[in-house]
């Protein structure tokens, strides 16, 4: 497509390995095995290709990127390529020595996830005993070294009441920014909608708390807010528009328009083992499938907001309607909107639902002791 602009951001899923087993994990249901992961040199080459293509921001993610023993070398390679490097981590697997090595390698910024504001909550949600304590230690080292920090609090029905404390913790840690991210239902999270769906009242309260905190903490803490999607009436501008600003590389080198794109069964994805990043970005079938507005039908096609939200999330349209080119049911113009809202209410009312954990094999992990 001739008017396609270069991407700004690349999410590198360095590995699907992770010590946590969060019930809302956004990685695909089928995880890439360690022996299929790209090696250090392959990633370094991809970082150079990305910079040549116009990528400015590199997000090093996973799984848990600290599970890669060569993380320090990967950061150095990314900085050599001229990329801004952001590490998205749970903190597990980072020692003070490793953090200092990442500092020396030129790491620009750290985004630290928060599963809860108490050890009981965080360790239950992460499915990893001692994880909270370790994370707090890592946060302290991050502050001592002086890395800019974003705290990423993932919130859902079980822990939304901890939002005020999460905001306090971000300030105490010296974070410049917090992402208040209500859980999005992709990947493993779809299995846990009954356990995780916030109530409508919770979602409204979260919005109120965020607005109050934005006023109170102006110039101290920047708050990015991802509201409860299923309870909204306007869909999210997913990925800033499909194939418009960002791309995702899987541990084995497949290039995806977003992390969940593999849930759309008719799409095919190119591998960096076969084609260049530039070819895939501009010519790849999956990237062109939902780029721009040509693919749209009504109500999207004639909608004034079609270049504002691009019809919402393609993967969500797929998951909820079975048709990836349908209007995201979050949109109040969608014929499926009313059904989605009642479904959200029903999920939120499932008081008995237990968390279904994931582990490397995709089966339930042991639940930590109370």
């Amino acid at each position, binding site marked *: 497509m001739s008017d396609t602009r270069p991407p700004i951001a690349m999410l590198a899923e360095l590995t699907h390995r992770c010590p946590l087993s969060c019930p809302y994990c956004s990685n695909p249901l089928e995880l890439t095995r360690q022996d299929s992961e790209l090696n250090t040199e392959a990633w370094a080459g991809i970082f150079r290709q990305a910079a040549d293509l*116009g990528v400015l*921001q590199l997000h090093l993610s996973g799984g848990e990127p600290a599970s890669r023993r060569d993380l320090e070398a990967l950061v150095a390679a990314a900085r050599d390529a001229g990329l801004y490097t952001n590490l998205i981590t749970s903190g597990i697997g980072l020692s003070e020595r490793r953090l200092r090595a990442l500092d020396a390698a030129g790491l620009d910024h750290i985004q630290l996830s928060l599963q809860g504001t108490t050890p009981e909550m965080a360790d239950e949600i992460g499915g990893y005993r001692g994880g909270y304590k370790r994370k707090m230690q890592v946060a302290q080292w991050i502050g001592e070294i002086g890395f800019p920090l974003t705290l990423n609090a993932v919130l859902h029905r079980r822990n939304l009441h901890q939002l005020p404390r999460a905001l306090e913790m971000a300030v105490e840690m010296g974070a410049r*920014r917090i992402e208040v991210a209500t859980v999005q239902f992709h990947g493993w999270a779809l299995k846990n909608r009954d356990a995780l769906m916030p109530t409508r009242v919770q979602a409204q309260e979260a919005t109120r708390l965020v607005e109050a905190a934005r006023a109170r903490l102006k110039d101290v803490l920047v708050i990015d807010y991802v509201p409860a999607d299923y309870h909204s009436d306007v869909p999210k501008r997913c990925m800033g528009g499909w194939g418009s600003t960002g791309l995702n590389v899987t541990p084995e080198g497949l290039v995806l328009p977003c992390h969940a794109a593999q849930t759309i069964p008719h799409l095919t994805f190119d591998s960096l083992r076969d084609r260049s990043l530039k070819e895939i970005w501009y010519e790849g079938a999956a990237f062109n499938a939902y780029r721009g507005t040509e693919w749209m039908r009504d109500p999207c096609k004639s909608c004034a907001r079609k270049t504002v939200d691009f019809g919402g999330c393609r993967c969500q349209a797929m998951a909820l309607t079975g048709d990836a080119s349908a209007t995201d049911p979050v949109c109040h113009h969608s014929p499926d909107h009313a059904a989605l809202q009642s479904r959200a209410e029903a999920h939120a009312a499932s008081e008995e639902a237990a968390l279904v954990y994931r582990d490397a094999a995709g089966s339930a992990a042991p639940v930590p002791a109370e």
Partner: protein
Amino acid sequence: MRGAMRGEEIPVLPRGVRLHQDRVRGGWVLLAPERTVALDQVGHAILSEVDGKRSLSEITAALAEAYNAPQDQIMQDSAGFLAALRSKRFLEVVTEVTAEVAT
């Protein structure tokens, strides 16, 4: 809400915020945590002078001379831009306490 940056204040780019020449699109950008800000010429000119030592007045005076433009005009033109960067925490002001520690 904090007002515009005062002339005597000393701006500084905090760690993790840096100027970057965008060789693919041309021009300069400010790279910050998970954000990229495209810079116009005035924005780039000011941020290039920010060194954590000189005050905003000193910077705009130098630019006024270099570009043969009134200093007041430069202050006015950049006030909104600098305030926006500051509210996103992409730009900070050296406080007296840290200035003392630094000397």
